[in-house]
């Protein structure tokens, strides 16, 4: 048929095509209704509540009818940044995330490299099995274990320390030690699990490269440096940049479970600040403003991270 004949095809034929399509695929659309409804209700509608950040919240009024806040709606953002607790929470969030990154990012890589070097197959499987397990424990349970294990007088670690003649260390009760305990427990929980991705990437490295290097006289370390690490580069770069993009994000479980009133000045992060002041303190506008600030900054960082990843030649995250 010529082009004009296509355009002038009878309309009923197009309807028939549409009806045929629907008759074939209507169940798929039906299946998609619950998920789409779920996202619409529980992910997108909450976004309309974000406007509270710019308005004075009142329980009796509907969200759409609330009066605008002062300073062109930015009153609560100004309040947030003048709030000492929030500034501490902001500082703590960044500090703890940076420490997690600096100490916790290389750890699974090193472990994956070590596991890769193990020739004892059964032992390797056993090590992996044990190492993955902490990932499946809730932070409450880990906090319970840590409280018992790291107690200043009765905890196992401090008993050993005292027998060595040193002073007991207040792992969870002193702000300075608490930060390191926090980071270390985070590594303890996630190191095994995070090796999975690196181990999977390691298996895709061509073994012939290793053989060729061995023939050329390269020892173990040189092989790792020149073959293994470059082979891991895509994975490392992608995950590193993703982690950088999350520098302002804040998990709730870990600081809440491990924190106590003695270390509040370091354990309070944005997530716990929002919980304490928002859900408990009922300062809805303030904490929504805080949450919005955090989400926007996160998106900006993720976009930057994506651009950086692509610049390094790796796939982005979209």
């Amino acid at each position: 048929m010529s082009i004009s004949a296509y355009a002038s095809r009878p309309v009923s034929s197009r309807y028939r095509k549409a009806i045929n399509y629907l008759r074939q695929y209507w169940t798929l659309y039906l299946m998609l209704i619950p998920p789409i409804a779920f996202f619409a209700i529980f992910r997108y509608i909450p976004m309309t509540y974000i406007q509270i950040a710019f308005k004075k919240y009142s329980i009796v009024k509907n969200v759409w009818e609330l009066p605008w806040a002062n300073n062109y709606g930015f009153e609560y953002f100004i309040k947030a940044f003048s709030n000492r607790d929030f500034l501490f929470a902001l500082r703590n969030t960044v500090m703890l995330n940076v420490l997690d990154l600096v100490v916790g990012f290389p750890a699974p890589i090193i472990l994956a490299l070590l596991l890769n070097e193990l020739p004892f197959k059964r032992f390797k499987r056993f090590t992996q099995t044990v190492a993955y397990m902490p990932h499946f424990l809730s932070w409450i349970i880990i906090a319970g274990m840590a409280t018992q294990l790291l107690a200043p007088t009765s905890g196992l670690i401090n008993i050993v320390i005292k027998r060595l003649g040193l002073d007991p260390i207040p792992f969870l009760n002193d702000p300075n030690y608490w930060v390191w305990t926090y980071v270390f427990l985070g590594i303890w929980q996630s190191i095994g699990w995070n090796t999975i991705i690196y181990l999977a990437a390691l298996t895709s490295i061509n073994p012939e490269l290793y053989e060729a290097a061995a023939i050329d006289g390269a020892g173990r370390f040189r092989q790792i440096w020149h073959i293994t690490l470059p082979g891991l580069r895509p994975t490392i770069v992608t995950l590193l940049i993703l982690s950088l993009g999350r520098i302002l994000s804040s998990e709730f479980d870990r600081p809440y479970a491990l924190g106590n009133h003695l270390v509040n000045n370091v354990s309070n992060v944005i997530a716990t600040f929002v919980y304490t002041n928002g859900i408990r303190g009922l300062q809805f506008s303030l904490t929504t403003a805080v949450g919005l600030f955090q989400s926007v900054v996160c998106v900006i960082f993720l976009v930057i991270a994506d651009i950086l990843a692509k610049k390094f030649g790796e796939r982005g995250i979209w």
Partner: protein
Amino acid sequence: MVKSKSSRIGDYIVAFICVLLIVACLLPMLNLLARSLSSPDAIIRNEVLLWPKGLNLEAYRFVLSDSKYRWSLIWTAILTVIATTVSMIMTILCAYPLTYDKLKGRRLINTFIILTMYFNAGTIPMYLLLKDLHMLNKPIVLIIPNCLSVFNMIIMRSYFYTIPESLRESAEIDGAGPIRVLTSIYLPLSKPVLATLTLFYAVGRWNGFSDALMYMNNNRKYYPIQLLLYNIIKSITSIEITTQEGFTNPGLTETVQAATVMIATVPILLVYPWLQKYFISGATLGAIKD
């Protein structure tokens, strides 16, 4: 290939480090187990390291006889089963249609869903929404608001992509509709990913407490076990609070605290070795994002 001596030494050094790692992972649990099985005097005298002293099941008897704790364990198990089932059904309903290339509007729906991974409205907007929906302080708030994880959905969809289109096409020629194709072809072939995601959802729900803390704080009857545990751990020094928070009898000792944590961990430990073979393959599916 014969290994050089220095290479073999290297092997043993690596093995030694792995042993240290194993010790570091198991030590806390052994210590906790030992404390839960010891007599309270031995604990106060700091005699308990890795092995129980004065073997004593009293702590377990005490904890398990407490009706609040028992109920919370049972309720959390029921909740986990219900929530995991709902989550798996929703995930399948979402992932499967998106594997049809010819589906009109697929791009739009994909974007609609994936956007939610990168921008979320925040804790308070969610709280206010649940308040307006009158879902606060009801058990359903532990099931519905977080039932569908985009990350898990992507894992399932990626796995579905690996099933050859030819199977679907031949089934369609035989007159099978999409649902029939799903139940007869895709689901039976997807056992690894179904097992993995079931594990992810179940562990997530068993370990979860922050949503109960925020959205169901006033309904103590339906506290998941982790939240109850948190209250118990935090209030070990104060007798009045312990009476209120979790236990009907006052006088918690450290051995009882250890026992409560141990009991809440047991389900995970039981399930773990059994499902371990599945999640390694399942987790790498997520790494190969399409």
